[in-house]
């Protein structure tokens, strides 16, 4: 517990130093594992598509004494299709009948009303033709494609193509995870889910952009020094913006969580719940990917750049020279994982007292 408290305090002081970049292969592995699981889950279990995609009807009734199983019987008898009935927090029922078209769904409302003994006018009905979901999905794909293209262009201009590429990969990664979670858990996919999914786009990138912005700044004068390689700078910058990333994610998740649990608790499944669920999953994935995937990817891509290769060479040469002189600069990999003096984004170079402050805190 004290360790956790310690981590909290260090986070507060902005002095965490985890070597995300050096351990990137671990996180790439984790991500690849998650992605494979997601794809397998998608292939094996598939997505549980809501009636909006299959065509059908959802009826929400006011408070009723009829039990869910009885209502299911009534609905199935009347419709000749499978029905799913859930009890809502309001005491009402949510009756979902799939495989209907909007025409036949209309008369079903009357039969259900009669069956569970509530006035027809108090029943809320959502009737969906089978091609409606297809249309929504098509639009969603278009939106996804357009957004990705625009955002890659924008990021390539605002930052550089490597960052744009890394951000895009992180984005696809988030979407895959989210879809995978839906496949594995079996949450229902509705237009609300699609909305949420599309919103993740913007949000996932928000975090990534915050991190990249810090990185861009830190790396500005990188070729003018010989202390750090690009990867090390990237890692420092990442650690520097870590608090920010965590805070923005927590703050973004809090309202969504409110939405998820209140929307869900109050009304059972519904639009609020659908949007917030996919947002919740996607936001968490987005925060993870911006830290563990996007930045290490940028570092990887950057290290292939001849300039950065040359820098790495110079840095390593200097370190080798220093070590042979017996002057331990404390900048081997082990020590580098602890960056005690507030790894502020943008700080290139040490600021003295490294050894002392490390001791103080241990």
């Amino acid at each position, binding site marked *: 517990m004290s360790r956790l408290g310690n981590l909290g305090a260090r986070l507060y002081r902005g002095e965490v130093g985890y070597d995300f970049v050096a351990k990137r292969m671990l996180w790439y592995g984790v991500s690849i594992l998650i992605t494979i699981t997601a794809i397998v889950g998608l292939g094996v279990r598939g997505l549980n598509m809501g009636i909006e995609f299959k065509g059908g009807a959802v009826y929400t009734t006011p408070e009723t004494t009829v039990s869910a199983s009885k209502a299911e019987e009534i609905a199935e008898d009347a419709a000749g299709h499978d029905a799913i009935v859930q009890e809502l927090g309001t005491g009402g029922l949510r009756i979902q009948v799939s495989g209907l078209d909007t*025409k036949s769904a209309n008369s079903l409302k009357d039969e259900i009303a009669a069956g569970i003994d509530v006035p027809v006018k108090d029943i809320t009905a959502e009737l969906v033709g089978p091609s409606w979901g297809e249309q929504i999905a098509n*639009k969603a794909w278009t939106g996804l494609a357009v957004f990705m293209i625009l*955002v890659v262009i924008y990021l390539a201009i605002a930052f550089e193509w490597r960052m744009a590429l890394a951000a895009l990969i992180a984005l696809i990664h988030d979407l895959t995870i989210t879809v995978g979670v839906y496949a594995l858990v079996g949450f229902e996919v509705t237009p609300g889910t699609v909305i949420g999914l599309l*919103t993740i786009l913007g949000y996932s990138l928000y975090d990534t952009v915050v991190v990249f912005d810090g990185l861009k700044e830190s790396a500005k004068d990188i070729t003018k020094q010989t202390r750090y390689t690009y990867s090390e700078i990237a890692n420092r910058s990442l650690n520097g913006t870590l608090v920010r990333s965590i805070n923005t994610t927590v703050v973004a998740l809090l309202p969504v969580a409110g939405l998820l649990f*209140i*929307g869900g608790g109050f009304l059972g499944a519904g639009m609020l719940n659908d949007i917030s669920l996919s947002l919740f999953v996607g936001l968490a994935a987005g925060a993870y990917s911006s830290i563990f995937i996007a930045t290490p990817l940028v570092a990887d891509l950057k290290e292939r750049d001849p300039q950065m290769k040359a820098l790495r060479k110079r840095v390593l040469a200097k370190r080798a020279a220093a070590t042979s002189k017996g002057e331990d600069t404390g900048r081997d990999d082990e020590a580098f994982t602890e960056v005690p003096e507030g790894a502020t984004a943008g700080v290139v170079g040490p600021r003295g007292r490294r050894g002392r402050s490390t001791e103080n805190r241990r």
Partner: protein
Amino acid sequence: MAAPKKGRRPSGGQGRPGRALALILIAMVALTGGMFWSGHTTPRLGIDLAGGTTITLKAKAQPGQEDAVNETNMNTAIGIIERRVNGLGVQEAEVQKQGTENIIVNIPKGTDEEQAREQVGTTAQLYFRPVMQIALSEPAAPQPSASGSPSAAPSPGASPKPSASTPGGQDEKATAPSPSATTQGRALTDALRKAPSPSASGGPSAAPSASESQLPAPALSPSSDPTADAGLQAKFAALNCADPKQRASIKGAKPADATVACGQNGGVWEKYLLGPAEVDGKDVDDAAGVLDPERGIWKVQLEFNDKGAKKFTEITGRLATQSPPMNQFAIVLDGEVVSAPSVDSPIPGGRAEISGSFNQKSAQDLGNMLSYGALPLSFEEQSVTTVTAALGGEQLRAGLIAGAIGLALVVIYLVVYYRGLSLIAILSLGVSAVLTYTIMSLLGPAIGFALNLPAVCGAIVAIGITADSFIVYFERIRDEIREGRTLRPAVERGWPRARRTILVSDFVSFLAAAVLFIVTVGKVQGFAFTLGLTTLLDVVVVFFFTKPLMTILARGKFFGRQHPWSGLDPKRLGAQPPLRRTRRVSVMTEPKEA
């Protein structure tokens, strides 16, 4: 997203923070004032929150007419659907185009949804029916019954309707209740002529004589049933076309039955007693409003297909021999008489024209109606959502509670983490909330913005986006303090870089919202709109409220001295005392412009 050019120099904006704050306060007061002045103090609620029915229709292109789904046809369809829905007596029904091929129909609660669905979804019905009787329908309630009763009284006698054999007598009875001037005027203004086509002059004499001898029997068979006719006569007598409810109630007659209908003539409602439909709207091949170059007047040209041409020849042949108003036929669209031209002579050959006191618009409108047989496109019902007002209210409540809880959680987190600084964040969130609410309320009447459930959801999600900007800025300030700066320089030095990050990330959010808004359909747009709006407002609030407030408070005691509870306590932040030799790190000393 244009960023206001502020804070060009980190410490140069001494006099500005007050001005910026004043500006945003004025904006808030103005918006709030505007809200109360316009009387729209709450955002307009969407159907899913207020209750009602939403029908989404998708235009379907007929095979071989793939380019039929175009803007003109969509707009015509919207016009027709709007007329139909509002013909139900609903004033607030909304018909909107969404995307390129969808039409959304919003019908507020308290309307007969089933009827609305029937009206909206089906292709409109266009029929040509012979006119039996016409009467003026007075707007005042007692009047029509007075004028109707004389016509009702003689009707049983006339009910066998030997109209063809004794046209004169029938004529007198029919025209008696209605001021003859109207009928005559109508007959004169809307006259049906032979189209000046070569085929028209071909066999006029042969056709009428044939139809004359054959047709009376089939035409009379439905109306010769005395009981049905008496009922119809009574209905005709009681009909008051000035009442929209009554107009709606008489729609939907079967084509094979005689019926009553209403129609407007020069702003005056007239009621019609009509025979069974003789020609179907589907039999019209083409129709258009054109300018007659010789006479210099607007007319409507009609062209029938083979089947229609045959039937039209018959009906005109029969009608031409009768006297007014029985020589008229009514063009009935969706149960309403749009025109009732009289027939002078039989019109064979499938081409005809209607002339009268048309202007360009009325001629073209009628042409459109005739040629499209009603809707220019066929539509498929994509989804129908009916929400009871009770459930809508419940969902709104759930959304608001969720929002309040989300906001509370964010506030708690900010207070715990940022202590005194959270005050600035909370005030900024408050400003943001006021701006969002007032703008949403004002957008209702301005652009028809309606707050639906996804929009509420978007607003809640936006709390996070808005708070994110403060976090970015606060963390920047704290970074500066960790490096050993005192608060005032930290506030100024942290700003340019925080501003940059906020703008870049807000731009991405806004881009996502904009793309979502443009490409999506249905409810998603509300979500995207709210998200986009709040993202923009976030930029405004951060620039004009948070930053200036921070600058001012940094001068004060509590924050200025970096009180332990201010969230800026250097000790707690693990700050380093300023060290000269770190100056060599050029990145740090010169705050860079974004």
